[in-house]
């Protein structure tokens, strides 16, 4: 009987040890997954007792900070807000952007105890952690300058990691005056400045979609690379279906490389009909259409719709990026990055880490693979196709030459050992696109990455109603060049 009682006690002990183990697991390991759930009221809290943390760019430039007024109430102040507001979001009419998604970090004080006691005696305010973005503020300003006052968006990302280097949109708004401007911002004539076109704007992909059609064809049979046909500028598939190349240009006899470089519609619509509805659907699924991209800020899911009973005309239009397909500039940048990254699409992220006021780094984001959307071989072949677009096709204007004298380095002493500094002719790989738009002029697309053999940056540009893509091409080129000369060596 006594031994039995002892055994029972050991059973109790075991039960509670397991319970404690589970408690640790839930609160320390699993909690990262669920505490960011929007039903957690702690995410929306704003403490009256502490100063909200700042939002910084990757190099420590302050984009948003809090300041006390004479009455001791904290106010949020945004620097260059029109350029950064689509990322930082605002705090005055609810919360959006990083302010909303990273509220918890901004309001969490993780300074060491001793530091905080020192602060208390020194009268320094208790401040929440700073959130450090992956965005380079200089590149962001430069991209905003390139976009100017054209409606549209530009996304630049690092292909190997999914880091967002820059994300601009126009029209934009000033987060400092959201309260005052609220009515104007939401009026019909304002063209939705609160919408972050870069991640939320849905556009027909136009010819940039030929990346998908080409990848699908090469995935089905590598010999498609050598498939040749004669383009007559226009092709009649059946009585109701006729497709026309841009400006009805006749491309003549062409293989995939030439057709891709010249963005031949008849060629890729023919290939699309050969691949069929099933293949296009499965490829679109692989490319993450209609699926969650796991991005931190508000974004739209791209949509692809080609039901099994679609008619020939739908297949033809879809395979050249017209049809019902809609895509966000962010998603297009991710697809371009995946081509640059051996076919592996990375999860896009915009917050690098948070840090306590004493500089301790917390919550560093670890790059995460989203999906392998094509094999490395196909990615290499698409890269060759995209190089030809810049070398002899529709985007010869995208070629980059960097004078070594233009390269800006932060520290003169290290510039002599210029390892990794990119100079001279930089091979760009790209694809143009012209998206037909029912309500006005065509939208101009350009997606690109560089250097083609060792990609460091991928860019996706959309200019609404800009017609053909000269400005889009030039903007992408200049942004990549600026990144190589002014950002990469910092």
């Amino acid at each position, binding site marked *: *009987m*006594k*031994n*039995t*009682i*002892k055994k*029972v*006690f050991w059973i*109790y*002990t075991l*039960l*509670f040890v397991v*319970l*404690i183990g*589970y*408690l*640790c697991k*839930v*609160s*320390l390991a*699993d*909690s990262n997954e*669920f*505490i960011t*759930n929007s*039903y*957690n*009221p*702690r995410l929306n*809290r704003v403490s009256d*007792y*502490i100063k909200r943390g700042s939002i910084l760019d990757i190099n420590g430039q302050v984009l948003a900070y809090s300041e006390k007024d004479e009455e001791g109430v904290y106010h949020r102040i945004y620097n260059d807000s029109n350029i950064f507001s689509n990322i930082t979001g605002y705090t005055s009419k609810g919360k959006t952007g990083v302010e909303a998604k990273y509220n*918890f970090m901004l309001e969490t004080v993780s300074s060491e*105890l001793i530091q*905080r*006691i020192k602060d*208390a005696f020194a009268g320094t305010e*208790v401040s929440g952690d700073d959130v450090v973005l992956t965005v380079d503020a200089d590149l962001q300003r430069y991209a905003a300058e390139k976009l100017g006052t054209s409606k549209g968006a530009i996304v630049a990302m690092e292909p190997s990691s999914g880091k967002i280097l820059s994300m601009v949109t126009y029209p934009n708004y000033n987060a400092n005056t959201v309260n005052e401007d609220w009515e104007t911002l939401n009026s019909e004539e304002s063209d939705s400045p609160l919408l972050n076109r870069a991640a939320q704007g849905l556009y027909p992909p136009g010819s940039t979609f030929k990346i998908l059609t080409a990848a699908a064809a090469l995935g089905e049979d590598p010999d498609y690379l050598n498939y040749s046909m004669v383009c007559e500028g226009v092709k009649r598939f059946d009585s109701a279906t006729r497709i026309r190349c841009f400006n009805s240009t006749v491309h003549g006899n062409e293989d995939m490389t030439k057709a891709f470089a010249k963005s031949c519609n008849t060629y890729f619509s023919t290939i699309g009909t050969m691949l069929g509805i099933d293949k296009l659907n499965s490829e679109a699924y692989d490319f993450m259409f209609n699926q969650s991209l796991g991005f931190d800020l508000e974004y739209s899911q791209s949509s692809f719709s080609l039901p099994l009973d679609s008619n020939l005309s739908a297949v033809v239009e879809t395979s050249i990026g017209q049809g019902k397909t809609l895509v966000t500039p962010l998603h297009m940048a991710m697809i371009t990055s995946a081509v640059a990254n051996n076919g592996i699409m990375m999860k896009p992220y915009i917050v690098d880490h948070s840090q306590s006021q004493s500089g301790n780094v917390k919550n560093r984001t670890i790059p995460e693979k989203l999906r392998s959307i094509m094999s490395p071989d196909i990615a290499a072949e698409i890269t060759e196709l995209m190089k030809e677009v810049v070398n002899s096709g529709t985007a010869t204007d995208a070629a980059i030459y960097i004078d070594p004298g233009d390269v800006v380095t932060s520290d003169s002493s290290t510039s002599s050992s210029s390892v990794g500094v990119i100079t001279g002719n930089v091979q760009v790989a790209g694809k143009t696109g012209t998206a037909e738009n029912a309500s006005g002029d065509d939208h101009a697309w350009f997606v690109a990455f560089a250097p083609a053999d060792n990609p460091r940056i991928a860019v996706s540009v959309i200019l609404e109603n800009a017609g053909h893509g000269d400005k889009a091409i030039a903007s992408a080129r200049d942004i990549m060049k600026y990144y190589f000369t002014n950002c990469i060596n910092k």
Partner: protein
Amino acid sequence: MFEIFILLAKYLFIIYMCVFLLCGFCINLSKEGVVDVSENLLAAVQRIMIMLFHITAFIILVINDKEQPTVTLIFGLISLLYIMLGCILLEKIYKKSSPIMYNGIFFLTDIGLVMLTRLDDSLASRQFIWCLLGLAVLIVLPPILNILPRLDRFRVLYAALAIVLLMCTLIFGSNFYGSTNWISIGPVAFQPSEVVKLLFVFFLASALSQKPELRQLIVPTAVSAVIILCLVAQKDLGSALIFSMTFLVVIYIATSNVFYLLGGFGCGALASVLAYFLFPHVRTRVNVWLDPWSDIENSGYQIAQSLFAVGSYGLFGSGFTRGYADYIPVVERDFIFSAVCEEFGVLFGIGIILVFVMIFLEGVRAALYSRSRYLTLLSAGLTALLTFQTFLIIGGDIKFVPLTGVTLPFVSYGGTSITMSFVIIAIIQWVYMRNDMYKQDKTPEEYTPHPVDEQIPHRRRRRRSME
């Protein structure tokens, strides 16, 4: 400056908890004869820790209370007096009792009072009345039990009373928190299942007080089955589970036959699976346990809020009064543990679990050295009740097991529950004290503290005489 105090207090609370547990650990080592320390001194240190905890917490509560800080201050002082008086008085009256058991329950009671004051003053003052009643029970129950003759002879009475009480609940009961387990008499509502708990263990202990053969297990099993089925019918699944586990433990101790434990556990598992398919409300509970996130607006809301509370602020918590515990529905009853974890930190939560383990160890010790089978089974059964109740509710709060709305003993708000928990402790302490009297019959020297070399042969001798 107040913010810094709250921050410092976070660490202070954890230090208090650690010192309290360390003292408890040393006392246990001393009882096992591993080290030789003054148990009285360590118990006194534990009481100081409770006092410091109370004072630190109420400083924060008073400063934080913008509406009526004086009322909170007065409540803080009165409850401090209560806690200190409780521990010291009991130890002075009952010299042979287990002081760490008293310290443990008063620490938990104080954590409950502090947390309730932070959540809702009016609940705290009502809880305080019940705590006063509990203290009275602790003081008067042991002598009453000494006077009462042979409580092991009334097994039929216990069984009949338990079943009648449960039937009444089924017929006249009112519905609270989804279970029909309350009876209202005039303005007073109470939970008969809490009283039945006690009757149930008394019944089992007296029915099995002679070493039973298989045949003699039939009646107790049948009666237990009826009681448990009544609880299931009331949808009081938590109590049904606690009763079942207690039944298994008592049978196991009474027979020392591990097959009864395993077999019973197998039957229990089978019954649970059956219940899952038979009753929709069981199914809902289990589904919510498996995945609270898919229906977070409705059925998953409670448990999700509880997990947010436990998971958001990590080991050291948000700081007392700086959490968001108010968002959890019925936080003062079912989810008080999550609220404590949020504001005092997960480390403190682990500490609370260890305080419970310390109390249960004392209960097991009481059973271990009892002088009759009846007393052994009684104290072991009562300990089992508290153990499984604690395990079920903490496990439910952190989604380790499906949530069953039972209270956390001594901490949760609830009149019947807290009074019955005190009654259970009073009876266990009574058994504990009787063991000591028995020890003194056998050996003339004083029992505590024992010199190490004398204690070990002494125990061996006693054990032999039992078997």
